[in-house]
């Protein structure tokens, strides 16, 4: 069974043999191919029951969440079961500022946000607010460890959702906030509100595809940032905390501060994804931000390989794509798309027993200039050996 799950090792070995330039080249090709996928969709990949562009847009959002959660769970080793709470804070921030249903609406003519760029302006605000939420949440909870941390974060995630559900005077309760702003870009006669509006629903290059492209660009940016963090002192501290917190503390690593950093950065990334979600669906309501989705995000990270920022993107793809692909496919009277939680639950169990490190396990690249250091060491041996 472990052999079946091991193709990730082959891929990983091949990837680590490549030089930096080659990695960038393959990355660019891969990125281009991914971007063109909704436009030239091969038949076996297409999703018959639901818009492919929409599916890819959802994938981009979950991928961003997975990268954020990976920072918290995979790199710093903090099991966060309430990550969906940050997703909610990001989405609600954008919705509260721009929805006509919200009492804190700041869109013109009363407010200072102009409709065309309201969404764009709200994204950094959403990230900042979510980061602040991460800080506030992290302060008391990060003193707790292991299973207890998992349960506390679970509790907080649910409290956030219940607050959104009950404080109906502000968040409109279960009825949700409608009419959230979205970027107005590329307005034409047919599409007076631009390509990102839900009016752009037909064809391959529908609004889902546009949101997917936006998401892809953001993914690349975040990967660069997180990659830099990984190879810096912060990343090394996270690995130390993850492997053995007490040892790290005794070696002089300020574990609490770095854990808090992981939490805050993870929260900010989650908030970004929430803002994307609010803009795309243009409707934010509490039922989306439940524990089950939290588990699904965790599943994406665990499936892809905890600590591997590219692997979790693959995990996110599996989580989003498979249920949509199987929508409408029936097996013995049961719609397979409905069984998605069953399959992912099984996948989690099977993976944890046979391959707990995930499909694409992480290989620590801790040194900033590791490659050149290794080549230097390798070449340094020869003159010495010759003597």
């Amino acid at each position: 069974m472990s052999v079946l799950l091991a193709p990730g090792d082959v891929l990983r070995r091949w990837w680590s043999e490549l030089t930096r330039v080659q990695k960038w080249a393959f990355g660019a090709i891969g990125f281009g191919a991914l971007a063109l996928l909704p436009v030239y969709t091969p038949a076996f990949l297409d999703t018959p029951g639901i818009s492919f562009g929409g599916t890819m847009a959802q994938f981009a959002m979950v991928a961003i969440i997975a990268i954020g959660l990976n920072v918290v769970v995979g790199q710093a080793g903090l099991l966060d079961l309430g990550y969906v709470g940050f997703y909610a804070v990001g989405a609600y921030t954008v919705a509260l500022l721009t929805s006509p249903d919200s009492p804190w609406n700041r869109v013109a003519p009363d407010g200072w946000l102009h409709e065309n760029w309201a969404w764009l302006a709200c994204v950094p605000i959403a990230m900042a607010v979510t980061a602040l939420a991460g800080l506030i949440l992290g302060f008391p909870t990060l003193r707790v460890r292991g299973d207890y941390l998992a349960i506390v974060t679970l509790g907080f995630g649910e409290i956030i959702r219940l607050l959104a559900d009950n404080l109906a005077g502000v968040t409109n309760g279960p009825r949700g906030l409608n009419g959230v702003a979205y970027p107005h870009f590329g307005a034409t006669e047919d599409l007076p509100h631009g390509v990102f509006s839900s009016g752009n629903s037909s064809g391959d290059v529908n609004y889902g595809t546009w949101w997917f492209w936006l998401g892809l660009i953001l993914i690349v940016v975040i990967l660069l940032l997180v990659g830099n963090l990984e190879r810096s002192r912060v990343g090394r501290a996270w690995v130390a905390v993850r492997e053995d917190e007490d040892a790290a503390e005794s070696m002089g690593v300020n574990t609490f501060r770095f854990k808090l950093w992981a939490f805050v950065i993870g929260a900010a990334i989650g908030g970004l994804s929430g803002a994307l979600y609010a803009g795309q669906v243009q409707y934010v309501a509490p039922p989306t931000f439940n524990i089950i989705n939290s588990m699904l995000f965790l599943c994406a990270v665990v499936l892809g390989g905890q600590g591997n920022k590219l692997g979790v993107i693959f995990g996110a793809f599996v989580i989003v794509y498979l249920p949509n692909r199987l929508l409408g496919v029936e097996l013995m009277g049961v719609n397979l798309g409905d069984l998605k939680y069953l399959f992912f639950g099984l996948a989690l169990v099977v993976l944890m027993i046979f391959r707990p490190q995930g499909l694409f396990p992480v290989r620590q690249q801790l040194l900033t200039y590791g490659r050149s250091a290794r080549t230097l060491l390798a070449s340094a041996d020869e003159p010495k050996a010759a003597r």
Partner: protein
Amino acid sequence: MIQECIGQYVCLAGDIGFNVENLRTGFWQFTIDGLAWGAIYALVAVGYTLVFGVLRLINFAHSEIFMLGMFGAYFCLDLILGFAPSGNAYDRGVALTVFYLGVAMLFAMAVSGSAAVGLEFVAYRPLRRRNARPLTFLITAIGMSFVLQEFVHFVLPEIIEGYGGSNAQQPIILVQPRTQFEVFGASVTNVTLVIVISALVLARLTYLFVHRTKFGRGIRAVAQDPTTATLMGVSRERIILTTFLIGGVLAGAAALLYMLRVPQGIIYSGGFLLGIKAFSAAVLGGIGNLRGALIGGFLLGVMENYGQALFGTQWRDVVAFVLLVMVLLIKPTGILGESLGTARV
């Protein structure tokens, strides 16, 4: 629909009531009802606490064990004993009703117990053999919780007609709630009495088992020090099986009692929230501590009721979560502290 908020705080304040009058007038009624709920939480909490005490593992899937017990009881009443689902209560007389309830409870216990044992075999034993990290156990537990829920949600309707699915089962009401006597103006119904007394009896039996039998001694030994216990000749695997079995049996009993209280609550998702609350109760009382589970359960049930009376019905669940978070942050060992592995309970 758009409420103009005079200062955002008025909006917030409007949604969180502070209805002291409601709490005051109904205080004893809320207390009595809270004890009934607490009894159910306590029975489920014992399952969590025992497994944690012995294995240091939070059995996330325990809530689904409870849910399966509910379906088991329903199945017994519906297909074996022949009660047709209906919104009206059956009234077969005291002795017969007690008999039927007893049969259903035993059946529910059997279903839950076997599910718990199955869970241990399928999910946890392979992990223990591979010396997995605690994080891995938790993720597996979450996975199994999903699997069981969705199995009942989508696959069960294909196996047994009319069971599972997205809607709650049509209720089978065996006992019509009737006030037996009053305490300070609060009515105590027969349902409440049955629930609280059964819970206390079962708790006492569990206590006797853990403290007076050989198996119980083994449980306490493994909880205290697994390696030494093995050296002393205690079969660790058998003890673990027994622990899961007891937890499952108690969850099955709680399932039947819950069915008495909320006959319309038998649905695939019916275990999840209750499981989290029961876990909160276990933590509140002191996880790993049997008496703690009981106290925690009753305390949570009562506090929840007060909370919803005070703040509004929609805040009921928030109270449970807030209590959980506060306990874990302030005193993670709970009110009575961990003690399954110590000489004194």
